């Protein structure tokens, strides 16, 4: 460290190479997961800036002068704007921060610049949590935090060269000591409900999940993802596997190939016609970047900041960009919208005349042949059941008249093929019908007693409107492959698809995986969802009488004082000059014991003189005590006796020793 300035001007010192290398590495560590979130050119520019600065610190390259740098900074800002057409929001904001930090590297000269860069690294860590808050990310950030703190120590070590391992140890200790304080702050700092300023409503890219449209092949892509869609805890018994239809986006518009969502409205009052018992459950929904909240079959109510649309899809006011947890009740037996509006019934009976002529002809023929709608539905299902239809994840690619090709020539399809063709057949036969997408089934985790619903459980089915029953769910896939609904996808397909179900694994690994999933679930429930409400509930359940903000602040102060006070005490004790050797403590204890029995050693008395006096008064020869005193003298004065096992034996002897009662 160049050290040629007085302390009040330390900030102006030229930064040394160790600091520059350390802060560059910290920046890389802090940025690494972001490189997947950012456009390629930003990653490239960041690496370029770091390498230039590294080469510059070795004297291989010159410092870029300010008159070049300033226009470049402007160009960088404009490039970010050109990339996103905005600079507010999560991704553009991150891009701008990254580009500007890279420029700061190019411009950095002094100790001050380097410290500012370290703070920027700390700040960057927080931005990761806007993109995800899983246990993995948290663990990575914890490691990164220790690394950046090591850099901070490196910069502040002045001209000392503390070894890297030592610096890492010191940083780990600092962070380790910080963790209990963090926990107190996390639990007790009163939470303020946000947001303070508006958060731009943006949809997340790169999130796997159901799509807004459905065309052949779309759901089967999802099936290969083992990502968790949501987890469900039931109050009471879990419904049967074939009852677990998790309702998602409903599609009423058909283009001839693709199903689209109809522009829906908010439902004024629910016409569920519910009979039978309600099922109560709590869903922890992973971010899906859409406004969709999933519910079991037909939910009978809504939650905060959401509404039910006219197709009974629970819809959030804001896009679900963070983990969301909500409690709902649903009914499994119902008569949905017996009085459906005529407009909507007309809409759900429409189909394009110019595509799929054979399908339309079949539907129209059924309409003539059968007397009731129920018979038509059964005719379609029995067609799927009795003819050579195959349920497969790898169906042949379909052309323009996708439904015709599927129904009459290829006959191999996945759930969306069946649902799509069935719905079109119904419409052709004059029965209002629509597509419902969502998830079906789930895997029960016995470790945590909850259901895991994965992206691979994605499904599509149909609803038809029958005059005296309202909207009725018909799952044509169940007709073809009952196993899909009753057991699950893995067994139904039998196509060597790698299994996501933990139950299919070896029991021991399965147990570990269930526990790990349970840990993630608990993390979601307790850590990520720790908001104002949860805080209040948690604190009042603690039984410490913390009920108001004031109580929290008092508890916070007490907690902080206790922790820092105990740190101070422990360090005070540990820093004390070395305490007397163990054998001294042991002999002192023994002497105390003798003192209580009435034998006090005189200050000038040798141990063996003392022994002789005791023996004389007691009237017998105490061989044990003699041995103890001999060992003590050996440990203290002879060489080679200060060994652990000797001292251990010595302790044992002196602890066991008792003054014999003279009669």
């Amino acid at each position: 460290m160049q050290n040629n300035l007085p302390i009040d001007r330390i900030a102006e010192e030229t930064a040394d190479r160790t600091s520059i290398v350390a802060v560059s590495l910290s920046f890389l560590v802090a940025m690494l997961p972001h490189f997947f979130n950012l456009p390629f050119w930003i990653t490239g520019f960041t690496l370029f800036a770091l390498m230039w600065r590294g080469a510059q610190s070795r004297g291989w390259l010159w410092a870029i002068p300010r008159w070049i740098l300033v226009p470049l900074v402007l160009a960088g800002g404009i490039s970010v704007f050109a990339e996103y057409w905005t600079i507010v929001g999560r991704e553009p904001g991150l891009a701008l921060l990254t580009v500007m930090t890279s420029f700061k590297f190019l411009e950095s000269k002094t100790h001050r610049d380097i410290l500012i860069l370290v703070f920027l690294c700390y700040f960057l860590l927080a931005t990761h949590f806007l993109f995800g808050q899983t246990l993995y990310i948290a663990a990575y950030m914890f490691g990164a935090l220790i690394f950046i703190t090591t850099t901070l120590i490196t910069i502040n070590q002045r001209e000392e060269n503390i070894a890297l391992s030592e610096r890492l140890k010191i940083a780990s200790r600092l962070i380790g000591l910080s963790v209990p304080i963090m926990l107190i702050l996390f639990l007790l700092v009163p939470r303020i409900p946000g947001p303070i300023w508006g958060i731009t409503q943006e949809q997340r890219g790169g999130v796997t999940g159901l799509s807004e449209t459905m065309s052949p092949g779309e759901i089967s892509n999802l099936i290969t993802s083992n990502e968790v869609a949501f987890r469900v805890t039931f109050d009471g018994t879990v419904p049967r596997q074939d009852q677990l239809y998790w309702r998602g986006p409903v599609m009423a518009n058909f283009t001839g190939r693709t199903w689209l969502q109809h522009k829906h409205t908010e439902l004024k009052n629910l016409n569920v016609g519910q009979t039978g018992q309600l099922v109560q459950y709590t869903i922890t929904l992973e971010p899906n970047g859409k406004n969709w909240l999933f519910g079991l079959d037909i939910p009978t109510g809504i939650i905060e900041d959401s509404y039910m649309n006219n197709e009974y899809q629970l819809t959030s006011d804001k896009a679900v960009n963070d983990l969301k947890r909500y409690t709902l009740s649903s009914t499994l037996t119902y008569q949905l919208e017996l009085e459906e509006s005529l407009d909507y019934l007309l809409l759900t009976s429409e189909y394009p005349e110019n595509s799929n002529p054979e399908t339309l002809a079949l539907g129209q023929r059924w309409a003539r042949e059968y007397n009731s709608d129920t018979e038509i539905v059964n005719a379609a299902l029995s067609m799927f059941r009795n003819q050579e239809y195959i349920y497969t994840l790898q169906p042949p690619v379909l052309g323009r008249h996708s439904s015709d090709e599927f129904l009459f020539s290829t006959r191999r399809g996945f759930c969306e093929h069946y649902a799509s063709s069935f719905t079109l057949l119904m419409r052709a036969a004059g029965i209002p019908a629509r597509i419902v997408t969502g998830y079906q089934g789930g895997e029960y985790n016995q470790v945590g007693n909850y259901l895991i619903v994965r992206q691979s459980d994605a499904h599509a089915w149909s609803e038809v409107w029958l005059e005296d029953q309202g909207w009725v769910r018909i799952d044509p896939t169940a007709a073809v492959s009952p196993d899909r609904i009753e057991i699950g996808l893995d067994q139904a397909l039998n196509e060597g698809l790698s299994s996501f179900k933990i139950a299919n694994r070896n029991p021991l690994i399965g147990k570990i995986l269930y526990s790990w999933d349970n840990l993630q679930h608990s993390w979601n429930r307790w850590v990520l969802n720790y908001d104002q409400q949860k805080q209040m509930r948690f604190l009042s359940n603690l039984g410490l009488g913390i009920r108001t903000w004031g109580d929290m602040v008092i508890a916070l102060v007490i907690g902080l004082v206790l922790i820092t006070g105990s740190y101070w005490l422990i360090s005070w004790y540990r820093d004390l000059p070395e305490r007397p050797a163990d054998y001294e403590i042991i002999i002192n204890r023994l002497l105390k014991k003798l003192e209580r029995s009435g034998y006090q050693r005189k200050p000038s008395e040798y141990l063996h003189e003392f022994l002789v006096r005791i023996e004389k008064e007691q009237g017998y020869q105490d061989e044990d005590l003699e041995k103890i005193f001999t060992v003590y003298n050996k440990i203290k004065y002879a060489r080679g006796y200060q060994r652990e096992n000797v001292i251990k034996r010595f302790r044992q002897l002196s602890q066991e020793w008792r003054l014999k009662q003279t009669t």
Partner: protein
Amino acid sequence: MALLASLMPAAVRKRMDHWIALRNPPSEGAIHLYNRRLYILPTRFGYLYAMMLIVLLLAAINYQNSMAYALTFLLTALGIISLWQTHRNLLGLDVDLKTPAPVYQGEHLELCFTLNNPQQNHRYAVGIQYLNQVPAYTRVEAESEASLCLALPAIQRGLYQPAGFILYTRYPTGLFHAWSWLKFNVPILIYPQPLFDHQLEHSLMQDDNGKTRVDTADGDDFAGLREHRSGESLRHISWKAYAQGRGMLTKTFEGHATPSLWINWEDMSATSIEGKLSQMTALVIQAQLDGRKFGLRLPGIIIDQDTGSAHQAKCLDHLATYQQKNKNAELAVDAE
């Protein structure tokens, strides 16, 4: 801190200095750094860090992001721990200042401190600073001692007391600045800058005529200079000549009784007081080197003729403090 001090009105500053002086009385021996002796404040970076924490907290609230909260709180905790660790980096040290060896004006005065750490914790990057001078840093291992030296310019002859030293640290995170004001009752003596004047020297020593010149390095009376031969004692090298760039010369002596010398204030050729003192200093040094018996006559002060290093020190002492008004003045390091 320096920024704060510069913003303070003079009156406040004065009261502050008074308060500091009261709480940190000058010490005769080692100073033990205990709680009342130590002060701690955030550095500029500490304030910047606090600002960053506020921004992070706002972001956490705004996005209702639990992990952002956790990170904010962890960094807050790191700040709290830093406060304690920085303070602990100085707590319990014993600092002592040794009396420095006198130097001549224009040289560097070396002040060496002993930092004794009786405790089990290592101390890193402990710095010490005198006024606006460049600080020096050291580390003190557990249960050991370290020494730390400051080289200060000796600007003006005289007897001084050091002003307060600042012993400080910013280790480990640089967010806090912990310090202690140390004042030691240690005399610092700066002799006048010697001014060698050959002519003057010669005229004062002319009474040794008529003596046989013996080309030897052994003897009592100075006879002259000649080329140094290897193997001869370094004791007889004329360092004055060496300093003048004349090379290594050995002083030769004559084997007769040494004539004594009076260094008189009135005999000096310089006109200013400082000039005269400088010349007299040079003569004292030379006379001592020559092993000559010498005395000093300053206005109002007469030091009898004598030899020996104690005598030389006494003479130089008087020259250093001659007409110095305040013999307890604080050592300045800037030319006024």
